[in-house]
């Protein structure tokens, strides 16, 4: 397919492209951004050839630009994904997601006894290990890891 020099996933006129998503994380990205409910064109490709990753996922979302919080969510499940802003078919901004130092609101604490799981409290975490993804809860001080990570959808 690639040899035909055609785009496997067509271009969008305005919106955002999320490129270089690890294949295992593609559906998680769709879910945490709430794209199942998004009422405009969303183009999705997975297991596409990639120089950088071998195989990758890509999502193109028409007429959508993401907030800082949404980019942080993407970074947690797809670190080093590329975010490309598109306007009139041209790239206006392009950057790689980076795992932030802190996240608020959207990660669920993995400790069932944590106060944030029984009262309506916005969660807060310090990311203490970005390589292995280890988050320390501001409240109960317990760790949430890659294996126990649950991100509240939009």
């Amino acid at each position, binding site marked *: 397919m690639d040899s035909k020099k055609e785009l496997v996933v067509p271009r969008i006129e305005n919106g955002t492209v999320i490129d270089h998503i690890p294949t295992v994380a593609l559906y998680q990205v769709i879910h945490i951004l709430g794209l199942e409910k998004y009422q405009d064109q969303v183009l999705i490709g997975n297991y596409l050839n990639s120089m950088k990753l071998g195989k990758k996922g890509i999502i193109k979302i028409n007429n959508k630009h993401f907030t800082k919080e949404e980019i942080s969510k993407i970074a947690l499940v797809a670190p080093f994904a590329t975010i490309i802003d598109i306007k009139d078919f041209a790239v206006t901004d392009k950057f790689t997601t980076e795992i932030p130092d802190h996240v608020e609101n959207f990660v669920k604490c993995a400790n069932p*006894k*944590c106060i944030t799981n029984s009262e309506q*409290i916005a969660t807060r975490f310090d990311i203490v290990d970005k390589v292995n993804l280890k988050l320390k809860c501001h409240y*109960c*001080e317990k760790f949430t890891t890659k294996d126990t990570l649950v991100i509240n959808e939009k």
Partner: protein
Amino acid sequence: MSTLKGRNLISITDFNKEEYIEVLDIAEGFEKTPKQRVLADKVVATLFFEPSTRTRLSFESAANQLGARIIGFSDPGGTSVQKGESLHDTIVMVSSYADLIVMRNPKEGSARYASEVSTVPVINAGDGANQHPTQCMLDLYSIRKTQGTLENLQIACVGDLKYGRTVHSLVQAMCNFNATFHLVSPEELKLPSSVKMSIKNAGLKYYQYTDLRDIIPTADIIYMTRVQRERFPDPLEYERVKDSCILTASMLDGCKHNMKVLHPLPRVNEITMDVDKTPYAYYFQQAQNGVYVRQALMSAILGVK
């Protein structure tokens, strides 16, 4: 005036080394003269969302000796909490009635959250398995009192080092004082790597053992904790290791003269009764020291010391 005025005490790491020492110095004054009515115009709320004998009585005794009025509850039955009131609303309400809140709550992180919504300082009297900083402060007080210093000591921690929050806090606090740690536990209940990392980050050393006898000649302090049967998925495994962390009087032959045995209490069988009669037993005085330390904390936080 203390630099601790208006501060919360939620986690032992909220205070630094100088602040620990400041609290211990103030506590020493209260040990000499316990009845000082410096909080006669203050109201202290003790909110115990789960039962606790020692901690609650210790706080209330401390507040009483300082002349403070005490409001609160010793279990949430019959309060608005039982009607389903959120912790947020309870704390907002109580902080308008009191000058200081002392809270125990089984939910981990509840104390930090309470301190964020309260308009008055909050002292954490235990938030589930997370933190119990006043216990740690009284442990430090007991160590300094019995050893004359907190610096350069050989600290042995024995028993359930995995789940024992008092051990985690003590290790973190003692990392400020150039301690060497001797960690005695069954394999299944070793100190978590995150706490060991605190020791390493402080440039200090720790040694791990499975037999309590190995540390008797070395230790300045033996800090005993309870090994609970329910921590073991396999009951046979519990039976195999349960005696390895029991201290008896005969084992204390050959210990250092200055050595003291501490325990956060309640004990079950991990220290046999014959140890009580030895000059090394210090756990009951340790509990008594809790009153002075809590007097010091309350008066420093309320700005009267």
